């Protein structure tokens, strides 16, 4: 970019280099657009740098460590198992580096011009980009906004990265803490809280809502709570956090449950109470004729177009679950729409995964949601991991797979899994629902033996009233 306030032209401008932004840039370039991408931080956004990737690297290693005791009983004996926190963080960092450098290469191969700096609108088709030593302007034909989200702040808790932490601090700290308070029982709090517990930290999770993981099927919430308890994680729900004091090397968090006020103490407290879209005043959205809608998100049409017909928005800043795969999908819709292709955001399901131990994954309607919508025309069937051969040989018999289907037609409406490898299993359900598959389709598709995926036809047979590997039950 040129120095000063010279104005460049961009055919298609992407603001934000996270999953949404970088994949929109690649797709638009494949569709023949000249793409410029502005990123104020690191290419890869939250997901690759401080979200999905490092968290899953940490989670994986913590699980491997945690299973060693069980393995010893099963014949694979180790002595003196311990975490080398420096090597651990290096592994986490290396995963990030590998993936972000890959994305940088892909952007380069796609001829995407990367501009380092923070964009803000100065007109309906123009932005100013502020870099450390210079500012410039870019006039665009079309723009895709993908500015993502930031951690929600909690009143009274000023993150100092020493005693009051955010999720990033939990990912890259080269130390196994003695104890830790986690504020927030959403998926990020549960994933990172339990990962640290597996590494050996005494973890206490505080959640304001009456249950952890709000929105997840109730029996899955219960399964997770009981597993967390067995692991020694304390979970308190219905808790109001009043404030925090730092005293020497510890924090004291004041909490209120009902009318009783208590103080709990630990080496550190991590705040993970949700995320807010990056749509602040700096962006000057009004200048572009783009208004903020409900829940502080941007309103878009089926093609991800905002009120400004040349500005599209995708990812965490628009309605729906704040998840990377939603951003990837929307990115392609926006890139196509901006290029004048017939396209639309019409996915039936956005699956969701929680990388806890055991994993949780779901696609489609929940049981209650289905009953609310379809009344008696709903059949629910479950198959437990403990009756699956592969789960048994993996020593992972906790969990179940639940299918929710329309009774009359057998059409699959939802699948909910808690148990090992739920994350990789759920995509079959997503595809099945998108394709309009029925219970019979699942039951009659030959699934290889012995695999976890056999739980699909087994649960389908339960729904048919003719289970093979458990005694008859029907919901």
């Amino acid at each position: 970019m040129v120095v000063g306030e010279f104005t460049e032209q961009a055919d298609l401008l992407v603001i934000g280099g996270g999953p949404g932004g970088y994949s929109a840039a690649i797709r638009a370039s494949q569709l023949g657009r000249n793409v410029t991408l502005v990123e104020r931080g690191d290419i890869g956004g939250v997901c690759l740098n401080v979200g999905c990737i490092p968290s899953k690297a940490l989670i994986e290693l913590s699980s491997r460590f945690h299973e060693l005791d069980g393995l010893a009983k099963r014949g694979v004996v180790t002595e003196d198992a311990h975490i080398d926190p420096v090597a651990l963080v290096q592994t986490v960092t290396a995963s990030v580096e590998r993936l972000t450098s890959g994305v940088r290469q892909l952007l380069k191969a796609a001829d995407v011009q990367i501009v380092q700096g923070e964009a803000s609108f100065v007109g309906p088709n123009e932005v100013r980009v502020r870099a450390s030593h210079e500012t410039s302007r870019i006039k665009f034909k079309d723009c895709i906004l993908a500015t993502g989200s930031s951690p929600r702040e909690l009143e009274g808790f000023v993150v100092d990265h020493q005693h009051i932490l955010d999720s990033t601090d939990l990912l890259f700290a080269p130390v196994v803490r003695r104890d830790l308070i986690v504020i927030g029982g959403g998926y990020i709090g549960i994933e990172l809280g339990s990962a640290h517990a597996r590494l050996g930290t005494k973890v206490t999770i505080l959640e304001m809502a009456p249950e952890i993981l709000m929105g997840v099927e109730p029996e899955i919430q219960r399964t997770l709570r009981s597993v967390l308890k067995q692991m020694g994680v304390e979970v308190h729900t219905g808790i109001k956090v009043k404030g925090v004091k730092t005293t020497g090397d510890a924090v004291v968090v004041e909490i209120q449950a009902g009318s009783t006020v208590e103080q709990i103490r630990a080496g550190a407290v991590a705040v993970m109470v949700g995320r807010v879209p990056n749509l602040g005043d700096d962006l000057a959205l009004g200048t572009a004729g783009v208004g903020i809608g409900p829940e502080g998100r941007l309103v878009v049409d089926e093609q991800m177009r905002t009120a400004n017909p040349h500005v599209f928005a995708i990812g965490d800043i628009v309605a729906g679950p704040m998840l990377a795969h939603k951003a990837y999908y929307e990115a392609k819709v926006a890139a196509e729409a901006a290029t004048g292709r017939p396209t639309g955001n019409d996915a039936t399901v956005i699956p969701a995964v929680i990388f806890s131990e055991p994993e949780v994954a779901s696609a489609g309607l929940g049981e209650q949601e289905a009953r609310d919508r379809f009344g008696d025309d709903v059949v629910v069937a479950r198959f437990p991991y403990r009756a699956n051969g592969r789960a048994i040989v993996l020593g992972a018999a906790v969990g179940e797979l639940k299918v929710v289907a329309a009774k009359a037609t057998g059409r699959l409406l939802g699948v909910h899994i808690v148990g090992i490898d739920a994350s990789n299993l759920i995509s079959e359900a997503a595809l099945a629902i998108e394709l309009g598959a029925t219970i019979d389709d699942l039951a009659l598709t030959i699934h290889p033996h012995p695999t976890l995926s056999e739980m699909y036809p087994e649960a389908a047979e339960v729904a048919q009233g003719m289970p093979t590997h458990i005694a008859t039950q029907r919901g």
Partner: protein
Amino acid sequence: NQPVSARGGRALATPAVRRLARELGVDINMVTGTGPDGRVIADDLRAAASQPPSDTTI
């Protein structure tokens, strides 16, 4: 982060068929499906697309 639910009241069709409908400029929700349970299949769209426009939108 609630999973988004199946949307009611719209044509039952696979993602590829939904995409094809857009490419053919056919409103899939106006097409009568001939597949199982009234599912719209690619041939239904091609038939609809070859009709004069007024017919496809009735």
